[in-house]
């Protein structure tokens, strides 16, 4: 327990546990956590874990992430566990789910895709063609997108 308590418990907010070690910064990017908000954020990385060897943990105070926001994490932290905290207790547990389509989460990374014109108004759509192995393609141009490319192209 003392090992786990690297940061203090939070009163209200969201705890994202079991993030793959080293991925917490990407998780923050995907959640648009960039310091422009004033709520406290605690981040611990490379914590020893009996379950997965080593993990990252992110605690976001005074903000309850919606299911839609959490589902964005499916690409990099599909097995993260989510707890919504209210008054120091776990009020809800949530699962991350990778849906069949990522809408307006990332742009297609192919340089000649029609969606590269920033003035085109239709949503950016990446389709999950297969979950295992993970295969994601742009709904317009059909080009395959790697997780790395998607993270580089987050909206």
């Amino acid at each position: 327990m003392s090992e786990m308590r690297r940061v203090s418990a939070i009163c209200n907010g969201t705890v994202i546990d079991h993030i793959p070690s080293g991925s917490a910064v990407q998780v923050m990017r995907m959640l648009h956590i960039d310091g422009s908000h004033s709520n406290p954020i605690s981040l611990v990385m490379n914590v020893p874990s009996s379950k997965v060897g080593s993990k990252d943990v992110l605690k976001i105070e005074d903000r309850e992430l919606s299911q839609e926001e959490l589902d964005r994490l499916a690409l990099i932290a599909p097995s993260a566990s989510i707890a919504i905290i209210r008054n120091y207790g776990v009020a809800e547990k949530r699962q991350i789910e990778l849906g069949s389509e990522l809408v307006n989460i990332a742009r297609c990374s192919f340089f000649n895709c029609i969606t590269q014109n920033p003035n085109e108004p239709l949503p950016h759509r990446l389709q999950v063609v297969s979950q295992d192995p993970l295969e994601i393609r742009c709904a317009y141009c059909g080009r395959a997108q790697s997780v790395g490319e998607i993270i580089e192209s987050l909206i």
Partner: protein
Amino acid sequence: MDLITMDDLTNEEAISLLDDAERLLPIARGDAYLPLLKGKVLANLFFENSTRTRLSFETSMKRLGGEVLNLSEVGSSVKKGETLYDTMQMIDGYADVAVIRHPRQGAAQYAADAVQIPIMNAGDGAGNHPTQTLLDLFTIRQGQGKIDGLNVVMVGDLRYGRTAHSLSHALSRFGASLTLVSPEPLKMPSEIVRDLKSSGCHIEESEDLLPAISSADVVYMTRIQRERFPDEAEYEKVAGIYTLKAEDLRSVQSDMMIMHPLPRVNEIHPSIDATSHAWYFKQAFNGVPTRMALLCRSLGIDIPEAIV
């Protein structure tokens, strides 16, 4: 019905379109007139030049009594910064069906998502050109009497040539054996070869044309384009390495078909034109009945069983 990629059609739907195209042949040739599309308007949206494809759609529509809008102005609206979305909103109000050719990949699907009217993809960047594939299948069936289980040799630029990619995929769905003949730098991308193999297609790759054609049912030639090469010397090394002349055809099957999406440069010597192996001009004409069938299908117009 939109037609963006060949994946939009099941094998059965593709065959049924070929059957429709066959019935429309007398109209395509001008031997019969049946204004099935009278009162309908086709918008030809060519954001990139492709005179052959545009004319083929135009004559298809007109032979069926329909009207055609050629939006030569769209080029200028793009230069003024109009989005494809906005252009499509305007077209949605003017036409019943639209054909789109665009330099950007995904443009046809994007256009289809932006409007209600059916959209046909006539080429989007390096992406799809399904009406070409359908007319190729139609031609193959005309010459061989079937499209399944054929021995097909694809020749030339198999790396960038979308015609070759799309036709290979379609033929693999019909159980073809493919021989891919290209110079090393223009080999078919390995992920496409992998896809074809995993769909059960027997694939051989080679750099030599003549040994490959002796047992072929179809030899599909493509152009090697200068602009694919960073420097002239690299281009000169492979330019013209695959040329067929009448004397090369001595030991081929009597019904072997030579096809080419045209225009040709020097891939097929004119000495072949008069032989029974020459199918490329018929192939070009076949764009008309095939596109007629597609226009009718997309507009929900049934084609009579017998046209006289």
